[in-house]
């Protein structure tokens, strides 16, 4: 009873102090950024956010990890429907058509930068990256962030053991098969494996050989696009791979990057996957030297090699927030695409340097000499000026279409379908989904 008043008074003061405390931090405008970079990549993202916050005192970026790409995109859409959307969301390239078609939900980047008066030069970005995310009139809709392209990792020690030159990765598919047979003779069970089979062996295969995936410039020119990859040499290539699966020149290991262990434990001597797998390969390929080469091509297909297309993700801005917060978003985008930040991100992760300035900076720092092979990705991406078959692709419901392609390919590897049947089925099922997507926007 005696101390009751004192305690009450103390509590009141404490509560006031608490209320007064955070008010300081809230003077900064809060910007929320939802991303799908987990593990080590997530730590790098957090560093970018922290550095931006430290470099100025008007805005504060909060980077929130929401799960994998699919989960992040779904979360953002659900949040938008509930009126709780973040400012920035990282969406993978297959979600581009869905995001682009949602004109009432997104805030196109070119408009954002113009409205907030932030300096912005779309030509500073490399054309292959920009081409994917612009309208036919060249207006940029989302901000490139982490773009990658598939490359060929190979086991230098295995090459040496088989009597091959360890500095010469195979340039063409016939060469690759020959090399695989030699390494098999030297005791390595499998020639090559691949990750993200649709992205690498069909989408990038088509771009690299200047073949169309679908009509209407791979979907860039209209929602009434149709898939056509069952009428191109893609079918022959898949049939070849089915043949090679029998003798383990090719060995299937899973849909995403689940086949990586086959390369790490030297079961397969070659591994085709994203340039961003570099960090993983470097950490896990402990007992052998590895090298990086460009994707192989068929020399009898005219136009090959052309250029490869990007994977990865970009940052989309969602509507529904006050103008002053968008100023912060624009400022953050300028920071993000500055050469120093981009060069650092590229060197740490294996994602491409998306601006020419970042590429030049990395080169002048001698990074490519110290880490040979890390510039193969960008060289391959910019090999030639993109044609309408190699700018990228823009198909609605593409997440599901990729899964359909995966299912059909798995049937081919298991021997229960021919490549022709599988590709025909994939195109038929995929076209149904494209029509459904089109119908949603009538």
């Amino acid at each position, binding site marked *: 009873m005696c101390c009751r008043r004192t305690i009450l008074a103390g509590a009141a003061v404490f509560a006031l102090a608490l209320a007064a405390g955070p008010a300081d931090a809230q003077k900064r405008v809060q910007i929320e950024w939802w991303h799908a970079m987990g593990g080590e990549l997530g730590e790098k993202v957090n560093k970018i956010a922290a550095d931006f916050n430290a470099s100025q005192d008007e805005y504060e970026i909060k980077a929130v990890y929401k799960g994998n790409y*699919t989960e992040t995109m*779904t979360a953002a*859409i659900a949040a*938008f*429907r509930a009126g709780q959307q973040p400012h920035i969301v990282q969406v993978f390239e297959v979600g581009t058509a*869905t995001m682009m*078609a*949602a*004109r*009432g*939900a997104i805030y196109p980047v070119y408009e954002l930068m113009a409205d907030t008066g932030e300096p912005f030069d779309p030509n500073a970005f490399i054309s292959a990256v920009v081409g994917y995310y612009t309208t036919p009139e060249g207006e940029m809709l989302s901000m490139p962030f982490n773009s990658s392209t598939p490359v060929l990792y190979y086991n230098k020690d295995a090459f040496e053991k088989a009597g091959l030159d360890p500095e010469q990765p195979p340039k063409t598919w016939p060469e690759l098969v020959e090399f695989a047979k030699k390494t098999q003779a030297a005791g390595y069970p499998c020639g090559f494996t691949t990750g993200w089979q649709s992205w690498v062996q069909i989408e990038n295969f088509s771009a690299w050989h200047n073949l169309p995936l679908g009509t209407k410039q791979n979907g860039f020119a209209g929602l009434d696009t149709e898939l056509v990859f069952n009428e191109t040499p893609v079918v022959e290539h898949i049939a070849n791979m089915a043949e090679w699966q029998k003798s383990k020149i090719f060995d*299937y290991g*899973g849909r995403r990057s689940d086949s990586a*262990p*086959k390369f790490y434990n030297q079961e397969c001597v070659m591994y085709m996957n994203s340039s961003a797998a570099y960090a993983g390969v470097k950490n896990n390929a402990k007992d052998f030297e590895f090298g990086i080469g460009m994707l192989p091509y068929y020399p009898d297909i005219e136009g090959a090699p052309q250029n490869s297309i990007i994977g990865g993700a970009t940052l989309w801005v969602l509507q529904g927030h006050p103008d002053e917060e968008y100023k912060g978003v624009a400022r953050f985008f300028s920071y993000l695409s500055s050469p120093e930040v981009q060069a650092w991100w590229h060197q740490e992760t294996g994602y491409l340097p998306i601006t020419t300035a970042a590429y030049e900076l990395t080169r002048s720092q001698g990074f490519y000499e110290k880490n040979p092979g890390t510039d193969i990705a960008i060289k391959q991406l910019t090999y030639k000026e993109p044609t309408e078959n190699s700018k990228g692709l823009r198909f609605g*419901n593409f*997440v*599901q279409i990729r*899964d359909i392609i*995966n*299912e*059909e390919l*798995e*049937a081919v*590897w*298991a021997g229960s379908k021919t490549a022709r049947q599988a590709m025909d089925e994939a195109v038929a099922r995929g076209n149904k989904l494209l029509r*459904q997507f089109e*119908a*949603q*926007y*009538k």
Partner: protein
Amino acid sequence: MEKRVVFRQRGLPYLLLVPQLAVTFVFFIWPASQALWQSMLVQDPFGLATRFVWFDNFAALFGNPEYTNSLKVTAIFSFAVAFSGLAIALLLAAMADFVMRAATFYKTMLIWPYAVAPAIAGVLWLFLFNPSIGIIAWLLGKVGVDWNHQLNGGQALLLVIVAATWKQISYNFLFFLAGMQSIPRSLIEAAAIDGAGPVKRFVTLIFPLISPTTFFLLVVNLVYAFFDTFGIIHAVTEGGPAQATTTLVYKVYRDGFIGLDLGSSAAQSVVLMAIVMALTFVQFRFIERRVQYA
């Protein structure tokens, strides 16, 4: 004589019911009616363009070979999980009831799997059966079985059935054991004295007397197989390969959350609800008659 509870205050019984009614409303009636409404719409993922299309979504389902496939997979999966779960648990309960020494040890060990979360259970089995590094896959390779559930649909379905059943066995076991132990020992001894062997005692005496438990477990197991196995399927096979393990509930998730086709997904969940309701109704109407309540 009728039992009646009398409340002195007029509003008290309603007040006591409110929490339960609130929960039922918020967690069942509201989402169910939203699903019914959404199943009649075609929308873009962001909800910006909505069209009312009556029953088009439902009609589209029944012409869709992927939907028919998931109906088939669900039927095989659910009945396999329910019946093998019940059969194995019944056997284990009969054995545990019979044994004298270390009885508590067996019972504790048999109950533990129930405490494992479905997704974790799925991952455990995934590791055991992983074609490259799994122990059981390796053992199967030794006896000549080429195990690769990432490519072989039948093997994938078998794997998820095993994983789902394993979890449910403990739950069933617990109920069966309790049911058996509530049978008066004198009855069993009397049957033994009359010359009935253990199997005959089981078939004519024990099994009929635990029929209320069996009926209850049958209903619960079927509902479990239809709905609660989502976590296991998602963790182990993600519905693949080639949709060989895509049950109805998994397809609802795929089409709604990955495919972002909310209308079709809502229609599927309405159909799923109708199927389970019908199944439960059938069970109560036809099977409950044969249950002998003490």
